[in-house]
């Protein structure tokens, strides 16, 4: 019983019609996942197709600029450009072994959709992706990628038209198609066993990074830092470090425009306990339990909930969770591009921004940031944001004078 929960958080709050496929998945996770054949197949694919181990990069210029010894775990160098592929390949392999033929998923920024479509193409599975109509618009390049990879992208026009409602629609679709379809949940959230399953597939990030850091520096970093939307890249980076009590784990949520009220995506900082999408966790909600719309410049962080393991790590004070707003993220996006030649995803830029904003307090410390993805997908958003008068001071830094 207890393993459906991380402390007080987690569980399986879904319609009874979804319990049979969840129980089937639980069985598969227990029986297939630990088998040596599965583990070997997964490892080989991560090496041959994803390009693992991903590099760990030192940032000499930013380290000099800030006085913080900055290292990046380069999930942006993965095939398809983000950490999401680790999980989708794992779940696609599991799907094939479960004898199902369709991968269903939801996507915000589109990276999980692209990664799922890619895994489906590789393993000869059909792929259906639910995506909020607003996100379809702001991440059009990724929609085209998914379609070229053979996926069917279904725009979701209900509710907030972003990730939250894409998950609602995907869950509805799964009720009807469960016999032949596996729901390849894209982040370490949702009903048990997804938070556990996704974390297991993403834990490779932290395992590699921990070893790489030890090899290069002969010790562990002071801080491991990652952005938190649903929480998969962060839990992947954190997991191997949880027993290392000396290492500070810092998750960075999106504060959106920074306005008070609902215009943020920071449930760990600004939310309360509740139940959504099959899990008990921290949520942005009204006192009456209605889920609030969220906002972030980065579609991948734009979610009013968070994976239950993060709620637990926060409750037991093993990890801390900070907030970075749109402007700070945009500024870090430009700074990392300029100073190190790495254009990060806007999601990852939130984690980098936390270091830049807190550099004064972090002097001399070493920080490992999980650079969860690359920024190609965000070009349109950044260009448009820089036309906004509110960001004129950032736009002014462009044009070769920096």
């Amino acid at each position, binding site marked *: 019983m207890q393993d459906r929960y991380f402390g007080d958080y987690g569980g*399986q709050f879904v319609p009874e*019609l979804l*319990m*049979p496929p969840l129980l089937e998945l639980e069985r598969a996770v227990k029986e297939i996942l630990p088998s040596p054949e599965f583990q070997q197949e997964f490892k080989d694919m991560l090496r041959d197709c994803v390009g693992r181990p991903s590099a760990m990069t030192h940032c000499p210029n930013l380290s000099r600029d800030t006085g913080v010894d900055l290292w990046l775990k380069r999930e942006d160098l993965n095939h398809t450009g983000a950490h999401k592929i680790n999980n989708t390949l794992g779940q696609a392999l599991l799907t094939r072994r479960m004898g199902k033929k369709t991968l269903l998923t939801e996507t915000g920024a589109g990276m999980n959709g692209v990664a799922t479509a890619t895994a489906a193409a590789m393993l000869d599975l059909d792929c259906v992706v639910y995506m909020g109509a607003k996100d379809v618009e702001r991440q059009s390049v990724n929609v085209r990628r998914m379609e070229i990879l053979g996926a069917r992208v279904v725009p979701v026009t209900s509710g907030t038209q972003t990730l939250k409602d894409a998950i609602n629609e995907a869950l*509805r679709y799964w009720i009807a198609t469960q016999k032949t379809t596996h729901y390849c949940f894209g982040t370490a959230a949702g009903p048990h066993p997804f938070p556990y399953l996704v974390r297991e597939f993403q834990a490779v990030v932290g395992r590699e990074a921990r070893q790489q850091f030890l090899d290069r520096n002969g010790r562990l970093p002071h801080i491991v830092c990652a952005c938190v939307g649903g929480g998969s890249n962060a839990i992947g980076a954190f997991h191997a470090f949880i027993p290392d009590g000396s290492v500070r784990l810092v998750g960075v949520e999106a504060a959106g425009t920074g306005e008070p009220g609902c215009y943020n995506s920071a449930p760990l900082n600004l939310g309360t306990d*509740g139940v*959504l999408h*099959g899990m008990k966790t921290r949520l942005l909600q009204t006192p009456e*339990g209605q889920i609030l719309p969220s906002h972030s410049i980065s579609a991948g962080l734009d979610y009013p909930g968070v994976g239950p393991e993060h709620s637990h790590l926060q409750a037991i004070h093993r990890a801390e969770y900070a907030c970075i707003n749109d402007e700070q993220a945009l500024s870090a996006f430009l700074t990392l591009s300029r100073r190190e030649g790495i254009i990060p995803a806007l999601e990852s830029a939130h984690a980098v921004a936390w270091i830049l904003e807190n550099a004064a307090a972090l002097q001399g410390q070493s920080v490992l940031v999980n650079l969860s993805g690359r920024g190609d997908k965000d070009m349109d958003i950044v260009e448009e944001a820089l036309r906004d008068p509110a960001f004129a001071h950032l736009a002014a830094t462009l044009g070769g004078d920096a």
Partner: protein
Amino acid sequence: MTSPMTLRIREANKAGKTALIPFLPAGFPSRDRFWDELEQLDRAGAAVIEIGMPFSDPVADGPVVAKASLECLADNVNLEWILSELKARKGTFRAALLLMGYLNPVLQYGLERFAHDAGQAGISGLILADLPYEESASIKAALKSHHISLVPLVGLNTSPERMALYADGADGFAYFVSVLGTTGQRDTLPEQIREKLAQARDIFDIPIALGFGLRHPDQLRELDGLCHAAVFGSALITHICNGGTSEEFMKPWL
């Protein structure tokens, strides 16, 4: 103590009829008109009336119910309003009253407080669409002391073993979901439904209501003897959206 929901359903069955369980979201089609529709449903002979508690993320609902519920939310319908208005009308309905919704608003209202206030408002049953057996113990306990039944939902993919879990200590009635899908009207019911309903009737010793996808009174004849009650929501909502009244809607079903 036998649940008023069971009594009403058995009454209809004794009169040779399938009991009727209409569903409307609280505050639909408007906050004022809702109470009038509720009275009409009651007068027209509903055995149980299912009152929806609107939620922002109704994953078990199809487009018709979801849209109606979101409209009610936009009109500031909340649990406090629903329960206090019901309390003011306590004892005026012949039909047993059931609340249907999702867990989070109930959690935020407070489990004990909810059970107490719902009891005071004359509610005899609760359906939470996102509460499977595994998560139900504490809520069941809170409701029990106020004589409110947690109505189990089962479906075509529910194994006899799981049905037995739900049947243990269940009262009121069991809700059999007719399709692997969300609420909404469908032209035909799935083939396996006869066999599965027979299984459910063996396992539960409370009445079985069939719901999701009913759109036409003829479907009741098809199901005659297979279930004790029929739930309909989307068809009624659509009828009201098209300018009809609940009373008119109920006539051909009786």
